[in-house]
């Protein structure tokens, strides 16, 4: 049931522009704490670039460890935006309104953060341009377009550009609101960014079509991006990686972690900005129900990964699978993944009282992402530290503080960027909220008065 609060356009402006026009102490405290995480990232990065990859735990044959795990994780989180924003926009789900922009912005920032990791894990990231950028810098050597390491940048660049343009297009009307409420240099800057928007009939019609059209275009990209990231592993001949199930498995895993991250973000926004009128228990209820389905599909693909290994019946692949299931620390990670990624959260989400409990939803969403990060590590490392057949080539990956600093710092970067975004732009779409108010009505059915939504066909 909807627990809508009736608000005028002026009240919506005042509430949702508070983050832009006011500077409470908690913003500065949040910026300082998150800034420390960003500093941790920069220090770790600087240390690694200065001393070389020897300061990390990477060594033959494990060249992909925490940094690539983190890359896959953040690409997964980026699927939140499209799932929540595009799919819910196309299906005209009314409850999307308070979360679409935050989800899309989280997509942009998590994707940008993800893109850092394949570059920095090379040890000399400035050299990556030589083999990624489509130009021959020396001796007629061009990028190898047959390599998934080239497909990755094309997919991520497309998704990042598309998502950023999507955010900007929907932001234009809100920039005009800020322009009209500002003075001085602020008015000039927001005025330039709003491109002279006045809100006439033509502009609103095109804004509506743009939302549908860009959503429809970005959905295939959303499916392709994590499929292509999965092919970094699946098109190799490393045992356990070389499985055709990887593309849908990764995409569903991305949706699972991404939508859970949106839950975390919703709870965080509601608490930090005191937006109880906009982000309500009904929204958590709706996301929770969606997540039950997504988590179950993810569990099915997780199980399929085992089936594919058993069905192939290849000795090396079965050996790695046995290692993942029975050897420390991978069996522990397996238990963690299943319990924290499915059993505990879905067990909670099946109950309506828990779905409408903000704290329960916040903590269960965090558990999911702990499980999903572990799952990426569990997928990547066991295969490569036994990549070669002869035992003298085997090793055990031992991550160092530099890698921990980069991983933890990456969470700080995304959160810091989200906080800074909220300072400059409203994280909730003003015009969507106003439109939602307009289409809301109370309908009397007998003695009951029910909240209803009217829709234009």
């Amino acid at each position, binding site marked *: 049931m909807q627990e809508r609060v009736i608000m005028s356009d002026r009240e919506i402006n005042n509430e949702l522009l508070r983050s832009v026009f006011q500077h409470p102490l908690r913003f500065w405290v949040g910026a300082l704490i998150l800034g420390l995480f960003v500093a941790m990232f920069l220090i770790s990065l600087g240390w690694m670039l200065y001393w070389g990859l020897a300061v990390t735990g990477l060594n033959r044959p494990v060249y992909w460890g925490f940094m690539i795990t983190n890359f896959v994780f953040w690409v997964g989180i980026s699927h939140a935006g499209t799932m929540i924003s595009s799919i819910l926009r196309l299906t005209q789900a009314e409850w999307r309104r308070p979360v679409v922009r935050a989800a899309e912005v989280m997509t942009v920032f998590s994707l940008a953060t993800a893109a850092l990791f394949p570059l920095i894990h090379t040890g000399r990231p400035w050299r990556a341009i030589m083999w990624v950028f489509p130009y021959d810098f020396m001796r007629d050597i061009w990028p190898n377009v047959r390599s998934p390491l080239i497909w990755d940048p094309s997919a991520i660049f497309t998704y990042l550009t598309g998502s950023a343009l999507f955010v900007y297009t929907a932001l234009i009307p809100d920039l005009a609101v800020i322009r009209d409420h500002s003075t001085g240099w602020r008015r000039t800057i927001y005025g330039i960014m*709003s491109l002279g928007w006045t809100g006439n*009939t033509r502009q609103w019609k095109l804004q509506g079509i743009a939302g549908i059209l860009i959503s429809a275009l970005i959905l295939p990209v959303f499916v392709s991006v994590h499929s*292509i990231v999965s092919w970094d592993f699946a098109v190799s001949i490393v045992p356990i990686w070389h499985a055709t199930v990887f593309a849908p498995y990764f995409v569903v895993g991305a949706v699972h972690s991404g939508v859970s991250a949106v839950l975390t973000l919703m709870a965080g926004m509601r608490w930090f900005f005191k937006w109880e009128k906009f982000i309500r228990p009904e929204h958590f209820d709706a996301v929770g129900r969606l997540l039950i389905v997504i988590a179950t599909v993810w569990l099915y693909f997780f199980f399929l990964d085992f089936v594919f290994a058993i069905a192939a019946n290849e000795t090396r692949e079965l050996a790695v699978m046995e290692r993942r299931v029975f050897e420390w620390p991978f069996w522990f990670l397996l238990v963690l993944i299943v319990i924290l990624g499915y059993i505990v959260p879905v067990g909670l989400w099946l109950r309506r009282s828990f779905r409408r409990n903000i704290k329960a939803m916040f903590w269960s969403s965090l558990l999911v992402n702990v499980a999903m990060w572990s799952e990426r590590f569990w997928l990547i490392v066991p295969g490569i530290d036994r990549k070669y057949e002869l035992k003298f080539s085997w090793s055990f990956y031992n991550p160092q503080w530099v890698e921990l600093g980069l991983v933890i710092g990456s969470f700080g970067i995304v959160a810091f960027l989200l906080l800074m975004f909220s300072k400059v732009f409203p994280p909730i779409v003003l015009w969507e909220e106003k439109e939602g108010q307009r289409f809301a009505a109370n309908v009397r059915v007998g003695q009951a008065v029910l909240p209803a939504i009217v829709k234009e066909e």
Partner: protein
Amino acid sequence: MADRAVIGVFEDVQSAADATQKMLDSGISGDEFDILSSSPFPHGAFGESERHHNLYVFPLIGAACGFITGVLITAGTQISWPLVTGGKPILGIPPMLVIMYEGTMLGAIIFTVLGVLFESRLPSAGPRVYDSRITAGYIGVIVQGDEDKVRSAGQIMSEAGAEDVKFDEEGKTINLLEEPEER
């Protein structure tokens, strides 16, 4: 006679709709007035005419450009350094498809956004008339035409309960980057 413009600022939707109905009754067509608002309204809420656009052409053109770029990059790089690996053909079609697909989608998305801006007539130098109360929830009704029509429309809007009726300064547009003088 030079075109003039007038804006009526209404506090609520119904009085704006009543004003536009009276203008339609007085002979001002749905093409001659426009509505400014801070959020979208259902089509026809104010009796305005359908606004036609050619937005759907843009993603098609963009997709074609992106596809061609993808083909050129993938085929061009492989032909530039024609290395036979594992006895396979110089042009590997399946891996090319990935980059061609991404190029197509990127082109479609970029051109769609450009199309939205172009069809919305953005960026705009500035409207003939505007009121910043629009973004605070007021409804603006703008009429453009000859002096008589504009004066008549202004009169109708005043009688219909407009909070304010403002006429443009002849030959000038409003600079949205500047604060209005009456703030």
